[in-house]
C-alpha cells in the first residue's frame, strides 16, 4: 500500500515527447513548403499537452499516429518528416 501511495502521490513532471518533437518539426517544414501556417502550439515544448501525464500520453499517441498518417498519405513531405 505504501508503494501505491507513493505512485499516486508523486507529481510526475511531463515534458514534450520525442514523437511530438518530430511531429512539430515535420509540420513546421511542411508549412514552409506549402506557404501555410498551422497552429500546433499544444504539441510544442511549452504547449498544453504537457500539463498532466494523461494529457501527455494522449498527445504522444496523437503525434505518433498523426505523423504516420502524414507519411502514408502525402508523397511530397519535407525530408525532416521521415528522419
Amino acid at each position: 500500500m505504501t508503494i501505491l501511495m507513493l505512485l499516486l502521490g508523486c507529481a510526475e513532471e511531463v515534458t514534450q515527447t520525442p514523437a511530438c518533437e518530430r511531429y512539430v518539426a515535420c509540420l513546421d517544414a511542411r508549412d514552409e513548403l506549402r506557404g501555410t501556417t498551422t497552429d500546433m502550439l499544444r504539441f510544442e515544448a511549452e504547449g498544453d499537452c504537457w500539463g498532466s501525464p494523461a494529457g501527455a500520453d494522449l498527445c504522444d499517441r496523437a503525434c505518433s499516429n498523426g505523423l504516420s498518417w502524414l507519411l502514408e498519405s502525402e508523397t511530397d513531405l519535407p525530408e525532416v518528416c521521415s528522419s
Partner: protein
Amino acid sequence: MRLLLPLLLIPLAPAHQPAEVVSDFDVPNPYISYAVNGRFTTGDEVFTLHMELERGFALPFELLIEKRASNEEHRPMYAVVGPGLPPPTDEQRALLPKELPEGVGVFIDKNDDAERLVIFESVMRRFYWSSDTTALALDAGAHEVWVWSPEGTTGDFVIGLGVEEDFSEGTGGLFASWRTYAY
C-alpha cells in the same frame, strides 16, 4: 495490490467538454476539446459534426466505444472531411457513407485494429475501447466529421476532439442526458 497495479497501467483520458449529437452538431469552439456522445438506434445513421476553422490547426481525433460485452461487435468508423486533406483512394471512397463534396479530401479511421486500446475516461468514469488518437493538420475552412456504423450495429459512441480540459463553456447539456450514456 495485485488488482490495483494493472489498473495503474491503463491510460487515462483527460476530460473533454461533454456534448451530445443527435444527428448534427456544430462544434462551438474547435480550439478546446470535446467529447461528443451519440447513439446508433437503427445502425444506418450518419452523425455529422460541423467545424469552422479560422486558421490551420493540428487537431487530435479519437473514437471511443464503452468496453462491455454487448459492444464487442460495435465498431463505428469516422471520417474527417475538409480542405487540404488528401483525396480518397477508390477503396476509401467505397467506405464512405455518403458522397464526398467537390474540392475536399478525407481522413478515415476504420477503427478495425485487432488489438483495441483500452482507456479510462474520467468524466463518465467508464472504460472505453479507443480507436487511438490521431492528430490531423487541418487547413482553415469548413470541416465535417462523419460517424457511421458500417456493419449496421447499434449502440453508443463518443467522438473526442482535442486534448485540453476546459469546461468554461459549460457542459453542453450532456449531463441532462447522463442516464442515456452513463447507464
